[in-house]
């Protein structure tokens, strides 16, 4: 700090020290999971920034829900009641189907599926980097969030947790170029891997043979292979298929079902660890 350090080659030594320290940190961050604790505590200091940044959207959300005319609320209430009724009817069918499924599974000696608990979370921030698709949610280590935890919205699979801080955590969306998810076609079980390509409303299927039975509009669900995501959550629908004779594989463009740029409320599958254990049996 004192001015005797302001001249001479001391800056060079300091820079060298900073670079060495950074490289050690990066190597440790890649290698050792203990560095997550360091990140959590540093993240604690950053939390006020994230909270302040989310204030405008919170205000608009609050005013959206507080400053609406009574008629609109009544109408919304009405439509929600109808929706609830429809869902209730579906649940009734579900009970029968579940029982039947259980009997059939007993017949073929398959292990029973574990019920899935969920934790609701809310989006509080977007990643500031224009080239990645990550969001920040308001649940962290203290709520039992763990790295790799699947994140859903009402429509489908949204992504997975990649960083956990004390009070917040970071979700890598399925559409990010660094994200891949094993899927299968709901209609016939054809397996593939859906990889993000950087655009928010499109992903690609990797290594799909030209002869694979995939048609436009097919629903892709998670296949549970790779033990990252539990089986059976909708991921995307097939939007375009190109067969290029010069390429080894067909080019299949799919559209994520989750509303990646709109959903504010997300669900974390909490006991997916147990669930994945059950799949492995």
């Amino acid at each position, binding site marked *: 700090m004192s001015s005797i*350090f302001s001249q001479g080659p001391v800056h060079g030594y300091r*820079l060298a020290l900073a670079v060495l*320290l950074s*490289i050690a*940190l*990066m190597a440790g961050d890649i290698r050792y999971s203990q560095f997550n604790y*360091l990140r959590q505590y540093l993240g604690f200091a950053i939390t006020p920034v994230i909270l302040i940044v989310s204030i405008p959207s919170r205000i608009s959300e609050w005013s959206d829900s507080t400053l609406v005319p009574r008629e609109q609320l009544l109408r919304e209430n009405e439509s929600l009641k109808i929706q609830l009724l429809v869902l209730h009817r579906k649940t009734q069918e579900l009970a029968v189907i579940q029982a039947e499924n259980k009997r059939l599974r007993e017949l073929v000696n398959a292990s029973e599926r574990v019920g899935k608990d969920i934790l609701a979370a809310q989006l509080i921030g977007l990643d500031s980097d224009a080239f990645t698709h990550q969001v920040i949610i308001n649940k962290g280590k203290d709520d039992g969030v763990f790295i790799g935890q699947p994140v859903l919205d009402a429509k489908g699979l949204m992504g997975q947790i990649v960083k956990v801080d004390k009070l917040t955590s970071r979700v890598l969306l399925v559409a990010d170029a660094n994200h891949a998810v094993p899927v299968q076609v709901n209609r016939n079980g054809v397996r593939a891997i859906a990889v993000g390509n950087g655009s928010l409303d499109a992903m690609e299927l990797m290594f799909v043979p030209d002869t694979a039975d995939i048609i436009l509009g097919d629903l892709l669900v998670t296949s549970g292979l790779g033990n990252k995501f539990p089986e059976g959550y909708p991921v995307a629908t097939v939007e375009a298929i190109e067969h290029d004779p010069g390429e080894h594989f067909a080019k299949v463009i799919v559209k994520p079902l989750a509303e990646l740029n709109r959903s504010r409320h997300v669900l974390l599958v909490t006991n997916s660890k147990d669930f994945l254990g059950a799949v492995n049996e």
Partner: protein
Amino acid sequence: MSKYHTGPSAILPVFLSFFVAFILTAMPLPDMLMFARPEWVVLVVFYWTLYLPTRFGISVAWFVGLMLDVLDGNLLGLQAISTSGVAYIVLVIHQRLKLYPLPHQSIVVFLVVGLHLAFVHWAQGLTGIVSSGYAYLTPAISSAAIWTVVAVLLLTLQRAFRVN
């Protein structure tokens, strides 16, 4: 140590300016503007190293870069290297740089921020997939363009707190 410190504590204004820079960095923007978001934190590091070279240097810049890594969810230390590099460059040339008028300084800002972006992009490319093309350099242009404003604002802050 205190006899070298001619002014009052620099901690508050420096902390304030970084706090605001972090908020601006994390603030959601429309997609089009997001690509051109100036590197606010690097600009503030640039300013304080330029005008308080005896009290602000590589160590603080390193720590600020580390916090930026936490904010962006990068590998810890990735941007810390880069911000301390920025501080180093500015420390080496600060005596000349201070004599330039602000528009001339912004040319140096363009180069330094460009170097910073190129380094971060390259390092991120080692560990994951990054964008192709040169769009990632756009913030260098916007940072240079807004340097004059940032410098005047920070100068006002510095004078308000009488830090020198």
